[in-house]
């Protein structure tokens, strides 16, 4: 509600501390005045030494930035987490079923539950995937679900990330840093481990190897290279899984099989965890000017000789325009009501809704359908009149290019900033692995908007991260 204070995850409106935070609260009170500042400085030194950085596009060689890390953890109770993870599991099952249907019989379109035009004319729809049968029928194996919280009970899904979600290395390194910085705090609480992620990722990838794979599948992580903003994560995950970190030039296709170039000659590759976008994956099938991909990779995939993780074309399930239909999708494939709520979304192509949006734009959030990273969006309450007008014109010019949502009062968490400990808005991205079973790492990546009042948590826009603790019973 505009005007009233947002929900704080630690402190109730009456000043009392919420149950999951009681121990943290007393720990914070025990710390001497300088302790938090020292911890923050230590944390920065740890991250810099380890080289946990992201490259900023357009900046010079060697200028890698650190994502700010906040030393106060965010805490979620066991009960809260059980509810959330049920909802998440339901969602990823439905979305994978949706992808299978879209690339096969398209029953959901025939049934008229989703407008055909929305899918078939969508740039995220990948016609090359039609009729292809990926191992175990899974399209999106690695998923990040962006959640926001507005009160004690109310969580909303802000968006699904089914292409190549990033950030999981921060989840792991944040935990590593917290263990170093505040070991005594861990000893007082039972925090569910996140360190199992790399092992689970490996098991997931192995479980979707092509049917004909002999012995233990050979895994490769395919990266665009050191200039990519998420390169650290690519190398981190390859290292943690014991998989080979490859660039496009390290792989080649021969006789419909994928090989890597080793010092002793070609070696067969069974599963490629690719961190290259669909468009750049294979110059023979997708963008012909791609220097990052592997010529012939898609044909090898089509022939069932290699598994691509995630499959190309999964973007159709996390498109912002399709997002509106996810509750519908869950009902259609699972016959269940959605456990997690969608943020109510205005469709600007509808004249009535458009009129409402144009009139109330100062209270709303406008997002470009294909935008990401916090770019191409406008948060009404924190934007100028000129910005409001600019986005009115944009919506009028291309109503199908924008979705509009109410400005949610994102929950806040205590955060250590220059002025001391103060509430800052947060979101949450849990990571889901889909293979022989669905594995959800307890917690996920909490992103925090470090600027007072800001609702934009993206690292490219001044956001930081926090370690996220799910308590065990």
């Amino acid at each position, binding site marked *: 509600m505009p005007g009233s204070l947002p929900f704080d995850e630690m402190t109730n409106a009456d000043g009392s501390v919420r149950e999951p935070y009681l121990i943290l609260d007393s720990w914070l009170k025990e710390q001497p005045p300088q302790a938090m500042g020292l911890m923050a400085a230590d944390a920065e030194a740890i991250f810099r*030494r380890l*080289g946990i950085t992201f490259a900023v596009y357009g900046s010079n060689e*060697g200028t890698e930035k650190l994502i700010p890390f906040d030393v106060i953890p965010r805490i979620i109770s066991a009960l809260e987490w059980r509810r959330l993870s049920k909802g998440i599991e339901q969602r990823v099952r439905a979305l994978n079923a949706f992808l299978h249907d879209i690339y096969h019989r398209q029953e959901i379109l025939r049934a008229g539950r989703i407008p055909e035009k929305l899918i078939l004319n969508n740039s995220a729809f990948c016609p090359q995937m039609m009729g292809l049968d990926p191992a175990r029928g899974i399209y999106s194996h690695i998923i990040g679900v962006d959640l926001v919280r507005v009160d004690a009970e109310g969580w909303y899904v802000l968006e699904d990330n089914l292409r190549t979600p990033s950030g999981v290395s921060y989840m792991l390194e944040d935990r590593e840093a917290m263990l170093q910085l505040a070991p005594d705090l861990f000893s007082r609480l039972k925090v569910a481990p996140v360190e199992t992620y790399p092992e689970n990722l490996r098991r997931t990838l192995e479980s979707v190897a092509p049917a004909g794979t002999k012995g233990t599948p050979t895994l490769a992580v395919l990266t665009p290279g*050191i200039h990519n903003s998420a390169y650290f994560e690519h190398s981190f995950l390859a290292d943690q899984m014991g998989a080979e970190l*490859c660039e496009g030039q*390290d792989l080649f296709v021969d006789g419909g099989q994928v090989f890597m170039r080793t*010092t002793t000659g070609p070696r067969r590759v069974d599963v490629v965890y690719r961190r290259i976008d669909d468009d750049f994956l294979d110059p023979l099938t997708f963008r012909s000017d791609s220097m990052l991909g592997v010529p012939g990779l898609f044909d090898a995939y089509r022939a069932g000789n290699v598994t691509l993780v995630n499959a190309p074309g999964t973007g159709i399930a996390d498109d912002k325009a399709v997002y509106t239909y996810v509750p519908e999708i869950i009902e259609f494939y699972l016959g269940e009501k959605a456990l997690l709520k969608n943020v109510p979304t205005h469709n600007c192509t509808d004249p009535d809704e458009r009129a409402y949006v144009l009139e109330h734009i100062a209270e709303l959030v406008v997002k470009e359908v294909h935008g990401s990273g916090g770019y191409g969006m406008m948060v009404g309450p924190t934007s100028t009149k000129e910005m409001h007008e600019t986005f009115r014109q944009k919506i009028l010019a291309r109503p199908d290019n924008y979705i509009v949502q109410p400005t949610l009062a994102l929950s806040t968490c205590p955060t250590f900033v220059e002025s001391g400990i103060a509430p800052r808005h947060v979101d949450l991205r849990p990571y889901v692995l889909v293979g022989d079973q669905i594995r959800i790492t307890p917690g996920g990546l909490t992103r925090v908007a470090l600027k007072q009042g800001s609702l934009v948590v993206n690292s490219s826009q001044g956001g930081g991260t926090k370690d996220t603790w799910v308590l065990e019973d």
Partner: protein
Amino acid sequence: MLGRVAQNLFWLSRYVERAENMARLLEVGYRMSLTSRREGGASEHLLSMMQAAEVDELFLAKHKTPDAPSVSQFMLFDETNPSSVRSCLLAARTNARSVRTALTTDMWESLNTAWLEFSGVDPREVTGSRLIELLQWVKTVSYRYRGALLSTFLRDEGYAFSQIGNFVERADNTARILDMKYYVLLPRTDLIGGDVDIQQWTLILRAASAHRSYRHVYHDRYKAWNIADYLILRHEMPRSLFFSVGWINRTLEMLAEIHGGRSKGHEAAAQVTAMLDGNSMDRIFSYGLHEFLTEFIGKNNEITEAVAESYNFY
């Protein structure tokens, strides 16, 4: 192991070794320029030092005459000088980033920390004693990296490629240092060197960190013949050609064991070995020291090419 990873490990170690050698060379050139009493002597020393590093032409294209400030800036910080300490450390770190998964945390951190510290140095402050201090620091970067490597790196392919790179670079460097002053090492009728000669010999030994250990091996004053012998043929001198090539051979044998076979790299190394094995300073001098060193540098380079071809560098 990916061919690209092997290549990166090879070059990564070469760049670290090169940074160390550049620091040594600059230290020697700088000392010589300080103590030179002849008119123009200072810039001659600096220039011949840059000749040894094969960057003299590049320097002269940018600067008129070599003096200590311009040369030390050029050798330390110049981005257009591919062998400057800055270029070497950046190249080492960039190589390390792209093969991070193949390095141990300690190896990566030694390079990452080195680059971060070096980036924090203000070139304008690097004069006089700060210069010597910084050159010492560059050497410790190399020691830290090598120390991390020797104590934490798995003795498999990656180790072998890193060692071949390291010692190909070292052999190349020692040969160049000798070649830069080969004429002061030639046997002459006056067996006792003059002051100038002694100063030059000290320069050569210092550049190889060998001016102290020389005494332990030869129990004698500096003599041209011994100095050449020390840096070319002595097996116990860790920067000599003989030692470097021996190390290359040993790591190549290790590769042959891992891969179950020998390669063109072995053949190329055998060619270089043949130049040293059973050879004597007598024969090298009568062949011609300069000719010998030129041939050595050429054949040493062929090891790189043969290894690159045999192990799928690209």
